[in-house]
């Protein structure tokens, strides 16, 4: 152990950022674009998260939804579901308002190494699209580095779909396959109805060359993984982003442990092979 250096950063000290743009996506979810103060850059990777401070209300981990650009970024995008104190306060912000930011934290999707050159299958349940959108856009920005790109998307109802304009744009691309399903449709719904797992067998997967990236509600993983295994995919080629209760974001507070693993440090993105035997993981 060595003494703290006066110039060493305080890992709990947020840095201010300003809200540039915000938009309601659904009844409960809102989109935000923030910018760090001039001179401050975040260098983040897809799949990482930030600890967002609303002082007086608290702090909570939120995934970065934007794709990083080549250098560092001042700006970043979030999507926040209103569930409690911090998230409710965030929903009350207007452009020009400020927040505190710590991070980025956590292990990203290996978009730069393990994923390059492969077919990519993104499986997003509900809010799971939020971190995966960062990876999807990252890939689309470097489309030639990857093989086939398929995005499976599940939502509870059509009204719960996030980023509808962006989804429409993806739909129009011929270098990306987007398949959507909802649990409960309304009369205007033209795509699939039912659980997201049902979409998997319909894909013409090349299991050897495919890499899957998954994020969704806790109950989704087990069924999706079973289906992917059935399709012959190896646990080595599946990446999951997991959510846990989290306070510090830096591997101290203990809340996010999955058995012995810290979601904030070894995760939130895990290779399935690394956690297949970890009992609390899935």
């Amino acid at each position: 152990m060595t003494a703290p250096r006066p110039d060493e950063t305080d890992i709990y000290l947020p840095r201010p950022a300003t809200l540039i743009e915000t938009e309601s996506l659904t009844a409960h979810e809102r989109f935000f674009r923030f910018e760090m103060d001039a001179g401050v850059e975040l260098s983040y990777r897809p799949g990482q998260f930030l600890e967002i401070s609303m002082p007086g209300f608290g702090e909570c981990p939120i995934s970065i939804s934007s794709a990083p650009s080549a250098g560092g970024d001042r700006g970043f995008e979030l999507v926040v579901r209103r569930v409690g104190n911090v998230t409710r306060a965030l929903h009350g912000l207007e452009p020009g308002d400020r927040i505190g930011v710590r991070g980025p934290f956590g292990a990203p999707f290996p978009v730069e190494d393990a994923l390059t050159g492969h077919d990519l299958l993104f499986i997003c349940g509900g809010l799971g699209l939020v971190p995966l959108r960062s990876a999807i856009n990252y890939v689309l920005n470097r489309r030639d580095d990857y093989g086939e790109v398929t995005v499976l998307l599940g939502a509870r109802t059509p009204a719960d779909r996030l980023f509808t304009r962006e989804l429409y744009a993806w739909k129009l691309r011929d270098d990306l396959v987007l398949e959507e399903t909802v649990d409960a449709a309304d009369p205007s719904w033209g795509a699939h109805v039912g659980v997201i797992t049902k979409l998997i067998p319909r894909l013409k997967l090349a299991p050897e060359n495919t890499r899957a990236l998954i994020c969704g509600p806790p109950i989704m993983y087990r069924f999706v993984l079973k289906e992917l295994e059935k399709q012959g995919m190896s646990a080595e080629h599946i990446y999951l982003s997991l959510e846990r209760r989290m306070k510090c974001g830096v591997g101290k507070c203990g809340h996010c442990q999955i058995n012995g693993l810290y979601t904030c440090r070894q995760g939130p993105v895990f290779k399935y092979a690394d956690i297949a035997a970890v009992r609390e993981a899935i």
Partner: protein
Amino acid sequence: MPQKLIDQSSLGHWVAALIAEHKVYGVQAKADRFAFDALTEADDLRLDHDVTILPPKKYFHPPQEILLQFDREAMTFESVFHAEPFILLGVHPYDMAAISQLDKVFSMDHRDRHYLARREAATIVVCDVQTASPEVFAGCMGHATMEGQSGHDMLLTLLDDGRYLVDPVSAKGEALMGPLAHAPEADQAALQARKRVWDRNRRQLQKNKLKMKPSELPGLLAGSYDHPVWEERAELCYSCGSCNLVCPTCYCFDLRDELNWDLRTGRRLREWDGCMLRGFAAVAGGHNFRARRADRYRHRYFRKGKYTWEAYGEIACVGCGRCISACTANIANPVEVFNRLLEER
């Protein structure tokens, strides 16, 4: 460094001199138990204590502390560090071992300046155990003495002849030696006498007997995830977290904000938390990743015997026995659980 031999009355004078010049915390009686508290009278120091209700970790990782102050209009945050130097008198070797574990936790990777500032400000005087507590098993865990351990600044040992061997082991420890300049130096006989105290403590601090080497625990637990003991014992568990909170190696915490009356400025607090508490792993939407008492009960033992080993190379139990007496349901004894796993492997 000079090791000195002093009698009880010189010890008293020395402590009085320390109190006069420094902020000193020492073990004192609390009702019919013991606790670390600010020391104002040398006579109040109880080096003969068996165990303190809370471990000395409270001086490095307090039950509640302010991490930051903020102003939500200006959106400014200011770190609050506590760096006032202090002396901690009477830490037992097993508690020192636990502090060394916390040192690892808070200095690996993301370094925690709040912890480190308090730690840096401390001069730790360890005292060899004079009275074994009813539940202690530090002897089984390898933490009955300071042999092979470090992190402290000075070691006091009461020898059988009633004198104390004062052994400064760091520059900070040596700085406390001033008033003892004229005390006689410890000779070989005294060091031998200390060895005897250590040998005796290794044998005596085994009120509960662990039937295996601590290093076998990770392997034992690896095969015990589905053992019936978790369900059986957790039936009586209150999920009260007492076993977490009194543990010298537990460090989990919560963060919380509080506003001042101006509703603009406030502070971010860090508070002890515990993995045995029901909401510890609950997330928005109501999902709880360890919803059942048995899930949480098992998690604690796995953290003690396996997970912390994997992350830091340490068994997160030093054998202080505090959780055993703190558990009102009498189900938190790690030795009982580990021995049973061994027997029913």
